[in-house]
Protein backbone atom coordinates (compact mmCIF):
# COMPACT_ATOMS: atom_id res chain seq x y z
CA UNK A 1 0.00 0.00 0.00
CA UNK A 2 1.60 3.24 -1.15
CA UNK A 3 1.21 6.47 0.76
CA UNK A 4 -0.35 9.51 -0.92
CA UNK A 5 3.10 11.03 -1.06
CA UNK A 6 4.55 7.99 -2.85
CA UNK A 7 1.69 7.97 -5.32
CA UNK A 8 2.19 11.65 -6.08
CA UNK A 9 5.91 11.11 -6.56
CA UNK A 10 5.00 8.38 -9.06
CA UNK A 11 2.61 10.77 -10.81
CA UNK A 12 5.29 13.45 -10.94
CA UNK A 13 7.55 10.90 -12.66
CA UNK A 14 4.96 10.29 -15.35
CA UNK A 15 2.80 7.49 -13.93
CA UNK A 16 -0.57 9.06 -14.67
CA UNK A 17 -2.43 5.95 -13.50
CA UNK A 18 -1.25 6.57 -9.94
CA UNK A 19 -3.42 9.67 -10.09
CA UNK A 20 -6.48 7.48 -10.37
CA UNK A 21 -5.68 5.89 -7.01
CA UNK A 22 -5.00 9.29 -5.44
CA UNK A 23 -8.31 10.57 -6.73
CA UNK A 24 -10.19 7.64 -5.21
CA UNK A 25 -8.56 8.26 -1.87
CA UNK A 26 -8.81 12.03 -1.66
CA UNK A 27 -11.56 13.47 -3.83
CA UNK A 28 -14.22 13.17 -1.12
CA UNK A 29 -12.19 15.07 1.44
CA UNK A 30 -11.33 17.76 -1.12
CA UNK A 31 -15.03 17.99 -1.98
CA UNK A 32 -15.94 18.42 1.70
CA UNK A 33 -13.31 21.12 2.07
CA UNK A 34 -14.86 23.09 -0.78
CA UNK A 35 -18.42 22.37 0.24
CA UNK A 36 -17.86 23.58 3.77
CA UNK A 37 -16.26 26.75 2.42
CA UNK A 38 -18.69 27.55 -0.39
CA UNK A 39 -21.83 25.69 0.71
CA UNK A 40 -22.50 24.88 -2.93
CA UNK A 41 -22.56 21.38 -4.37
CA UNK A 42 -22.02 22.13 -8.05
CA UNK A 43 -19.30 24.72 -7.43
CA UNK A 44 -17.52 22.33 -5.06
CA UNK A 45 -17.63 19.51 -7.60
CA UNK A 46 -16.21 21.77 -10.31
CA UNK A 47 -13.45 22.80 -7.94
CA UNK A 48 -12.58 19.19 -7.05
CA UNK A 49 -12.21 18.41 -10.73
CA UNK A 50 -10.12 21.52 -11.22
CA UNK A 51 -7.82 20.60 -8.31
CA UNK A 52 -7.04 17.12 -9.62
CA UNK A 53 -6.49 18.43 -13.14
CA UNK A 54 -4.13 21.05 -11.70
CA UNK A 55 -2.34 18.35 -9.73
CA UNK A 56 -1.71 16.57 -13.00
CA UNK A 57 -0.75 19.74 -14.82
CA UNK A 58 1.68 20.85 -12.13
CA UNK A 59 2.84 17.36 -11.17
CA UNK A 60 6.44 18.22 -11.91
CA UNK A 61 6.37 20.96 -9.28
CA UNK A 62 5.73 18.32 -6.60
CA UNK A 63 8.79 18.01 -4.52
CA UNK A 64 9.75 14.75 -2.84
CA UNK A 65 10.37 16.74 0.33
CA UNK A 66 6.88 18.27 0.35
CA UNK A 67 3.97 17.21 2.49
CA UNK A 68 1.34 15.92 0.09
CA UNK A 69 -1.54 17.42 2.09
CA UNK A 70 0.06 20.85 2.24
CA UNK A 71 0.74 20.79 -1.51
CA UNK A 72 -2.77 19.57 -2.37
CA UNK A 73 -4.52 22.10 -0.15
CA UNK A 74 -2.37 24.92 -1.51
CA UNK A 75 -3.58 23.96 -4.98
CA UNK A 76 -7.14 23.76 -3.64
CA UNK A 77 -6.90 27.24 -2.10
CA UNK A 78 -5.54 28.66 -5.36
CA UNK A 79 -8.34 27.01 -7.30
CA UNK A 80 -10.90 28.50 -4.93
CA UNK A 81 -9.29 31.95 -5.12
CA UNK A 82 -9.33 31.82 -8.94
CA UNK A 83 -12.94 30.67 -8.89
CA UNK A 84 -13.89 33.49 -6.52
CA UNK A 85 -12.17 35.98 -8.78
CA UNK A 86 -14.05 34.70 -11.80
CA UNK A 87 -17.46 34.40 -10.17
CA UNK A 88 -18.27 36.19 -7.01
CA UNK A 89 -19.51 33.38 -4.77
CA UNK A 90 -22.92 33.86 -3.30
CA UNK A 91 -23.49 32.86 0.28
CA UNK A 92 -26.21 30.23 0.22
CA UNK A 93 -29.04 30.64 2.63
CA UNK A 94 -29.98 27.00 2.55
CA UNK A 95 -28.33 24.56 4.88
CA UNK A 96 -27.79 21.59 2.56
CA UNK A 97 -25.79 19.58 4.99
CA UNK A 98 -28.15 19.82 7.89
CA UNK A 99 -31.22 18.49 6.24
CA UNK A 100 -30.45 14.87 6.68
CA UNK A 101 -28.95 14.61 10.10
CA UNK A 102 -29.05 11.09 11.36
CA UNK A 103 -29.22 10.33 15.03
CA UNK A 104 -29.00 7.16 17.04
CA UNK A 105 -31.76 8.44 19.25
CA UNK A 106 -35.17 7.79 17.87
CA UNK A 107 -36.97 10.36 20.04
CA UNK A 108 -38.38 12.86 17.53
CA UNK A 109 -38.06 15.77 19.94
CA UNK A 110 -34.37 15.04 20.50
CA UNK A 111 -33.83 14.66 16.80
CA UNK A 112 -35.59 17.94 16.12
CA UNK A 113 -33.63 19.75 18.82
CA UNK A 114 -30.36 18.33 17.52
CA UNK A 115 -31.22 19.30 13.99
CA UNK A 116 -32.03 22.83 15.11
CA UNK A 117 -28.75 23.04 17.00
CA UNK A 118 -26.78 21.79 14.00
CA UNK A 119 -28.60 24.26 11.79
CA UNK A 120 -27.45 27.09 14.04
CA UNK A 121 -23.89 25.75 14.10
CA UNK A 122 -23.95 25.51 10.34
CA UNK A 123 -25.16 29.11 10.07
CA UNK A 124 -22.53 30.26 12.54
CA UNK A 125 -19.79 28.73 10.38
CA UNK A 126 -21.29 30.28 7.26
CA UNK A 127 -21.31 33.72 8.87
CA UNK A 128 -17.63 33.63 9.75
CA UNK A 129 -15.21 35.60 7.56
CA UNK A 130 -13.68 33.38 4.84
CA UNK A 131 -10.21 33.14 6.37
CA UNK A 132 -11.55 32.09 9.77
CA UNK A 133 -13.99 29.61 8.27
CA UNK A 134 -11.11 28.11 6.32
CA UNK A 135 -9.06 27.61 9.48
CA UNK A 136 -11.93 25.83 11.23
CA UNK A 137 -12.59 23.67 8.19
CA UNK A 138 -8.94 22.69 7.87
CA UNK A 139 -8.43 21.99 11.55
CA UNK A 140 -11.76 20.45 12.52
CA UNK A 141 -13.06 18.78 9.39
CA UNK A 142 -10.07 18.02 7.21
CA UNK A 143 -8.10 16.36 9.98
CA UNK A 144 -4.95 18.41 9.44
CA UNK A 145 -2.46 19.23 12.18
CA UNK A 146 -1.69 22.86 13.04
CA UNK A 147 1.75 22.35 11.54
CA UNK A 148 0.26 21.23 8.21
CA UNK A 149 -2.20 24.13 8.30
CA UNK A 150 0.74 26.44 8.89
CA UNK A 151 2.41 25.07 5.75
CA UNK A 152 -0.80 25.60 3.79
CA UNK A 153 -1.61 29.13 4.90
CA UNK A 154 2.02 30.21 5.33
CA UNK A 155 2.06 30.84 9.08
CA UNK A 156 3.88 29.59 12.16
CA UNK A 157 2.25 26.72 14.03
CA UNK A 158 1.76 28.87 17.15
CA UNK A 159 0.10 31.60 15.08
CA UNK A 160 -2.26 29.03 13.56
CA UNK A 161 -3.29 27.82 17.01
CA UNK A 162 -4.09 31.35 18.15
CA UNK A 163 -5.99 32.07 14.93
CA UNK A 164 -8.03 28.87 15.28
CA UNK A 165 -8.81 29.80 18.87
CA UNK A 166 -9.98 33.26 17.78
CA UNK A 167 -12.01 31.81 14.94
CA UNK A 168 -13.74 29.44 17.35
CA UNK A 169 -14.40 32.29 19.74
CA UNK A 170 -15.90 34.41 17.00
CA UNK A 171 -18.03 31.50 15.88
CA UNK A 172 -19.16 30.94 19.43
CA UNK A 173 -20.23 34.61 19.58
CA UNK A 174 -22.16 34.29 16.32
CA UNK A 175 -23.78 31.09 17.55
CA UNK A 176 -24.83 32.76 20.81
CA UNK A 177 -26.31 35.64 18.82
CA UNK A 178 -28.26 33.23 16.63
CA UNK A 179 -29.55 31.42 19.72
CA UNK A 180 -30.79 34.71 21.17
CA UNK A 181 -32.38 35.63 17.85
CA UNK A 182 -34.18 32.30 17.82
CA UNK A 183 -35.40 32.68 21.39
CA UNK A 184 -37.06 36.05 20.64
Amino acid at each position, binding site marked *: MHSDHELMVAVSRGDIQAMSELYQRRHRSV*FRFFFRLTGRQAVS*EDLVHDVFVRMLRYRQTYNAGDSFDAWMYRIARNALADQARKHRLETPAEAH*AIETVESDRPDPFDMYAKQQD*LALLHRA*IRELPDDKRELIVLSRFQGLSYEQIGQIVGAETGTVK*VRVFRAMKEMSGIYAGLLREKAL
Partner: protein
Amino acid sequence: MMCGWAKEQIAASWMYTSGSGELEPGDQAKLRHHLAECAECAEEMAQLTGMWERLADLPAPEPGLGLQLRWEATLESLGGAPGGKRRTPEAWRFSLAALWPQRPVWQAGIALACLVVGLAVGGRWQGSAKSEIAALREEVANTKEMVALSLLREQSPSERLRGVDYSARMPRIEPEVVTALIRAVNQDTSVNVRLAAIDALSRASGQPQVRRSLEQALDRQESPTVQAALIGYLVETRDQQALGALRQFSKRPDLEATIRERAGRATQQLTEFK
Protein backbone atom coordinates in the same frame (compact mmCIF):
# COMPACT_ATOMS: atom_id res chain seq x y z
CA MET B 1 0.87 36.67 29.31
CA MET B 2 -0.13 33.29 30.65
CA CYS B 3 -3.63 33.65 29.18
CA GLY B 4 -2.13 34.13 25.70
CA TRP B 5 -0.14 30.92 26.12
CA ALA B 6 -3.27 29.18 27.44
CA LYS B 7 -5.24 30.07 24.31
CA GLU B 8 -2.63 28.31 22.15
CA GLN B 9 -2.74 25.30 24.45
CA ILE B 10 -6.54 25.22 24.47
CA ALA B 11 -6.49 25.10 20.66
CA ALA B 12 -3.82 22.37 20.87
CA SER B 13 -5.99 20.43 23.33
CA TRP B 14 -8.81 20.29 20.72
CA MET B 15 -6.48 18.41 18.42
CA TYR B 16 -5.60 16.24 21.38
CA THR B 17 -9.23 15.28 21.83
CA SER B 18 -9.46 14.73 18.06
CA GLY B 19 -6.67 12.20 18.34
CA SER B 20 -3.73 14.02 16.78
CA GLY B 21 -2.21 14.70 20.19
CA GLU B 22 -0.79 18.19 19.84
CA LEU B 23 -0.59 18.91 23.55
CA GLU B 24 2.61 17.94 25.30
CA PRO B 25 2.09 16.12 28.63
CA GLY B 26 4.00 18.85 30.47
CA ASP B 27 1.89 21.58 28.89
CA GLN B 28 -1.23 19.63 29.74
CA ALA B 29 -0.47 19.84 33.48
CA LYS B 30 0.53 23.50 33.17
CA LEU B 31 -2.71 24.29 31.35
CA ARG B 32 -4.79 22.45 33.97
CA HIS B 33 -3.09 24.50 36.64
CA HIS B 34 -3.76 27.76 34.80
CA LEU B 35 -7.40 26.88 34.22
CA ALA B 36 -7.83 26.17 37.92
CA GLU B 37 -6.67 29.72 38.62
CA CYS B 38 -8.10 31.71 35.72
CA ALA B 39 -11.90 31.63 35.57
CA GLU B 40 -12.04 33.45 32.24
CA CYS B 41 -9.80 30.93 30.46
CA ALA B 42 -11.62 28.04 32.15
CA GLU B 43 -14.95 29.31 30.88
CA GLU B 44 -13.59 29.82 27.36
CA MET B 45 -12.08 26.36 27.43
CA ALA B 46 -15.38 24.75 28.45
CA GLN B 47 -17.49 26.73 26.03
CA LEU B 48 -15.27 26.46 22.97
CA THR B 49 -14.31 22.83 23.55
CA GLY B 50 -18.00 21.93 23.73
CA MET B 51 -18.58 23.68 20.44
CA TRP B 52 -15.50 22.07 18.87
CA GLU B 53 -16.86 18.65 19.81
CA ARG B 54 -20.36 19.43 18.53
CA LEU B 55 -18.93 20.39 15.14
CA ALA B 56 -18.20 16.69 14.65
CA ASP B 57 -21.97 16.11 14.46
CA LEU B 58 -22.33 18.16 11.30
CA PRO B 59 -22.96 15.65 8.53
CA ALA B 60 -20.30 15.11 5.89
CA PRO B 61 -21.53 16.14 2.44
CA GLU B 62 -20.94 13.75 -0.46
CA PRO B 63 -20.09 14.58 -4.06
CA GLY B 64 -22.55 13.60 -6.79
CA LEU B 65 -22.16 10.51 -8.97
CA GLY B 66 -21.33 12.57 -12.04
CA LEU B 67 -18.05 13.84 -10.60
CA GLN B 68 -16.40 10.42 -10.70
CA LEU B 69 -17.50 9.87 -14.31
CA ARG B 70 -16.20 13.27 -15.29
CA TRP B 71 -12.85 12.55 -13.72
CA GLU B 72 -12.59 9.14 -15.39
CA ALA B 73 -13.31 10.75 -18.76
CA THR B 74 -10.60 13.35 -18.13
CA LEU B 75 -8.11 10.73 -17.06
CA GLU B 76 -8.97 8.53 -20.00
CA SER B 77 -8.39 11.41 -22.40
CA LEU B 78 -4.94 11.75 -20.86
CA GLY B 79 -4.29 8.03 -21.13
CA GLY B 80 -4.31 7.38 -17.41
CA ALA B 81 -7.51 5.41 -16.97
CA PRO B 82 -7.11 2.23 -14.93
CA GLY B 83 -5.87 -0.53 -17.18
CA GLY B 84 -5.55 1.86 -20.12
CA LYS B 85 -2.40 2.60 -22.05
CA ARG B 86 -1.86 5.90 -23.74
CA ARG B 87 -1.35 5.90 -27.48
CA THR B 88 0.02 9.01 -29.05
CA PRO B 89 -1.61 10.33 -32.27
CA GLU B 90 1.61 9.41 -34.09
CA ALA B 91 1.23 5.81 -32.95
CA TRP B 92 -2.31 5.64 -34.28
CA ARG B 93 -1.25 7.14 -37.61
CA PHE B 94 1.54 4.65 -37.88
CA SER B 95 -0.59 1.61 -37.18
CA LEU B 96 -3.35 2.65 -39.62
CA ALA B 97 -0.83 3.41 -42.38
CA ALA B 98 0.65 -0.04 -42.00
CA LEU B 99 -2.70 -1.59 -42.91
CA TRP B 100 -3.14 0.35 -46.14
CA PRO B 101 -1.75 -1.43 -49.26
CA GLN B 102 0.85 0.35 -51.33
CA ARG B 103 -0.26 -0.88 -54.81
CA PRO B 104 -2.91 1.31 -56.55
CA VAL B 105 -4.77 -1.76 -57.88
CA TRP B 106 -5.38 -3.01 -54.36
CA GLN B 107 -6.31 0.46 -53.19
CA ALA B 108 -8.95 0.77 -55.98
CA GLY B 109 -10.21 -2.74 -55.20
CA ILE B 110 -10.70 -1.93 -51.53
CA ALA B 111 -12.47 1.34 -52.41
CA LEU B 112 -14.86 -0.52 -54.75
CA ALA B 113 -15.51 -3.25 -52.19
CA CYS B 114 -16.29 -0.58 -49.59
CA LEU B 115 -18.77 1.04 -51.98
CA VAL B 116 -20.57 -2.26 -52.68
CA VAL B 117 -20.71 -3.20 -49.01
CA GLY B 118 -21.90 0.32 -48.16
CA LEU B 119 -24.74 0.17 -50.69
CA ALA B 120 -25.83 -3.28 -49.53
CA VAL B 121 -25.74 -2.40 -45.82
CA GLY B 122 -27.36 0.97 -46.47
CA GLY B 123 -30.27 -0.63 -48.32
CA ARG B 124 -30.89 -3.07 -45.49
CA TRP B 125 -30.36 -0.52 -42.81
CA GLN B 126 -32.92 1.91 -44.20
CA GLY B 127 -35.67 -0.62 -43.62
CA SER B 128 -34.80 -1.21 -40.01
CA ALA B 129 -33.48 2.29 -39.28
CA LYS B 130 -36.78 3.63 -38.02
CA SER B 131 -37.30 0.84 -35.55
CA GLU B 132 -33.66 1.06 -34.40
CA ILE B 133 -33.94 4.80 -33.86
CA ALA B 134 -37.16 4.28 -31.94
CA ALA B 135 -35.47 1.64 -29.79
CA LEU B 136 -32.52 3.95 -29.19
CA ARG B 137 -34.81 6.80 -28.24
CA GLU B 138 -36.62 4.48 -25.87
CA GLU B 139 -33.32 3.48 -24.32
CA VAL B 140 -32.22 7.09 -23.92
CA ALA B 141 -35.58 7.94 -22.34
CA ASN B 142 -35.22 5.01 -19.93
CA THR B 143 -31.74 6.14 -18.97
CA LYS B 144 -32.95 9.70 -18.41
CA GLU B 145 -35.77 8.36 -16.29
CA MET B 146 -33.32 6.36 -14.18
CA VAL B 147 -31.06 9.38 -13.74
CA ALA B 148 -33.99 11.61 -12.78
CA LEU B 149 -35.29 9.08 -10.27
CA SER B 150 -31.89 8.52 -8.75
CA LEU B 151 -31.24 12.28 -8.46
CA LEU B 152 -34.63 12.77 -6.81
CA ARG B 153 -33.51 10.36 -4.11
CA GLU B 154 -30.26 12.25 -3.42
CA GLN B 155 -29.70 13.86 -0.02
CA SER B 156 -28.59 17.19 -1.38
CA PRO B 157 -31.41 19.57 -2.38
CA SER B 158 -29.39 20.84 -5.35
CA GLU B 159 -29.09 17.27 -6.64
CA ARG B 160 -32.82 16.75 -6.20
CA LEU B 161 -33.41 20.01 -8.06
CA ARG B 162 -31.30 18.62 -10.87
CA GLY B 163 -33.48 15.51 -10.79
CA VAL B 164 -36.62 17.60 -11.18
CA ASP B 165 -34.97 19.57 -13.96
CA TYR B 166 -33.97 16.33 -15.67
CA SER B 167 -37.51 14.98 -15.50
CA ALA B 168 -38.85 18.26 -16.92
CA ARG B 169 -36.59 17.84 -19.93
CA MET B 170 -37.71 14.28 -20.67
CA PRO B 171 -39.84 13.91 -23.82
CA ARG B 172 -42.63 12.43 -21.71
CA ILE B 173 -43.04 11.99 -17.97
CA GLU B 174 -43.21 8.31 -17.06
CA PRO B 175 -45.58 7.20 -14.26
CA GLU B 176 -42.68 6.40 -11.94
CA VAL B 177 -41.28 9.90 -12.36
CA VAL B 178 -44.74 11.39 -11.83
CA THR B 179 -45.00 9.46 -8.55
CA ALA B 180 -41.54 10.67 -7.47
CA LEU B 181 -42.44 14.27 -8.31
CA ILE B 182 -45.70 14.06 -6.37
CA ARG B 183 -43.76 12.61 -3.45
CA ALA B 184 -41.35 15.54 -3.72
CA VAL B 185 -44.25 18.04 -3.62
CA ASN B 186 -45.62 16.35 -0.50
CA GLN B 187 -42.51 15.45 1.40
CA ASP B 188 -39.39 17.26 0.20
CA THR B 189 -37.75 19.35 2.89
CA SER B 190 -36.66 22.01 0.39
CA VAL B 191 -39.20 24.59 -0.76
CA ASN B 192 -37.25 25.05 -3.99
CA VAL B 193 -37.51 21.36 -4.84
CA ARG B 194 -41.25 21.38 -4.09
CA LEU B 195 -41.77 24.42 -6.32
CA ALA B 196 -39.75 22.91 -9.15
CA ALA B 197 -41.69 19.63 -8.85
CA ILE B 198 -45.03 21.47 -9.13
CA ASP B 199 -43.74 23.22 -12.20
CA ALA B 200 -42.55 19.93 -13.73
CA LEU B 201 -45.92 18.31 -13.02
CA SER B 202 -47.74 20.96 -15.03
CA ARG B 203 -46.81 18.84 -18.07
CA ALA B 204 -48.78 15.98 -16.61
CA SER B 205 -51.84 18.03 -15.65
CA GLY B 206 -53.85 16.16 -18.28
CA GLN B 207 -53.82 13.16 -15.95
CA PRO B 208 -56.72 13.33 -13.46
CA GLN B 209 -54.76 11.42 -10.78
CA VAL B 210 -51.99 14.05 -10.90
CA ARG B 211 -54.55 16.83 -10.44
CA ARG B 212 -56.15 14.96 -7.53
CA SER B 213 -52.76 14.40 -5.89
CA LEU B 214 -51.89 18.06 -6.11
CA GLU B 215 -55.30 19.08 -4.74
CA GLN B 216 -54.59 16.88 -1.73
CA ALA B 217 -51.04 18.24 -1.50
CA LEU B 218 -52.39 21.79 -1.10
CA ASP B 219 -53.75 21.09 2.35
CA ARG B 220 -50.43 19.64 3.54
CA GLN B 221 -48.29 22.64 2.66
CA GLU B 222 -47.06 25.07 5.27
CA SER B 223 -44.98 27.28 2.99
CA PRO B 224 -47.00 30.21 1.54
CA THR B 225 -44.84 30.15 -1.61
CA VAL B 226 -45.69 26.52 -2.26
CA GLN B 227 -49.33 27.14 -1.38
CA ALA B 228 -49.44 29.98 -3.92
CA ALA B 229 -47.78 27.81 -6.58
CA LEU B 230 -50.31 25.00 -6.03
CA ILE B 231 -53.25 27.40 -6.19
CA GLY B 232 -51.87 28.74 -9.48
CA TYR B 233 -51.52 25.19 -10.76
CA LEU B 234 -55.11 24.29 -9.86
CA VAL B 235 -56.46 27.40 -11.60
CA GLU B 236 -54.47 26.60 -14.72
CA THR B 237 -55.90 23.09 -14.92
CA ARG B 238 -59.45 24.60 -14.92
CA ASP B 239 -60.57 21.46 -13.18
CA GLN B 240 -63.87 22.04 -11.43
CA GLN B 241 -63.16 19.20 -9.06
CA ALA B 242 -60.47 21.32 -7.46
CA LEU B 243 -63.17 23.67 -6.11
CA GLY B 244 -63.80 21.46 -3.09
CA ALA B 245 -60.12 21.32 -2.17
CA LEU B 246 -59.74 25.08 -2.59
CA ARG B 247 -62.80 25.84 -0.44
CA GLN B 248 -61.58 23.47 2.24
CA PHE B 249 -58.11 25.02 2.09
CA SER B 250 -59.51 28.58 2.44
CA LYS B 251 -60.96 27.60 5.82
CA ARG B 252 -57.55 26.82 7.32
CA PRO B 253 -57.02 29.18 10.25
CA ASP B 254 -53.24 29.44 9.81
CA LEU B 255 -53.30 30.89 6.28
CA GLU B 256 -51.61 34.16 5.49
CA ALA B 257 -54.06 36.87 4.38
CA THR B 258 -52.60 37.05 0.87
CA ILE B 259 -52.88 33.29 0.41
CA ARG B 260 -56.44 33.24 1.69
CA GLU B 261 -57.26 36.03 -0.74
CA ARG B 262 -55.56 34.17 -3.58
CA ALA B 263 -57.44 30.97 -2.77
CA GLY B 264 -60.72 32.93 -2.77
CA ARG B 265 -59.89 34.46 -6.12
CA ALA B 266 -58.95 31.04 -7.52
CA THR B 267 -62.29 29.60 -6.34
CA GLN B 268 -64.07 32.41 -8.10
CA GLN B 269 -62.07 31.92 -11.30
CA LEU B 270 -62.76 28.19 -11.35
CA THR B 271 -66.46 28.81 -10.77
CA GLU B 272 -66.50 31.21 -13.72
CA PHE B 273 -64.94 28.55 -15.96
CA LYS B 274 -68.05 26.41 -15.45
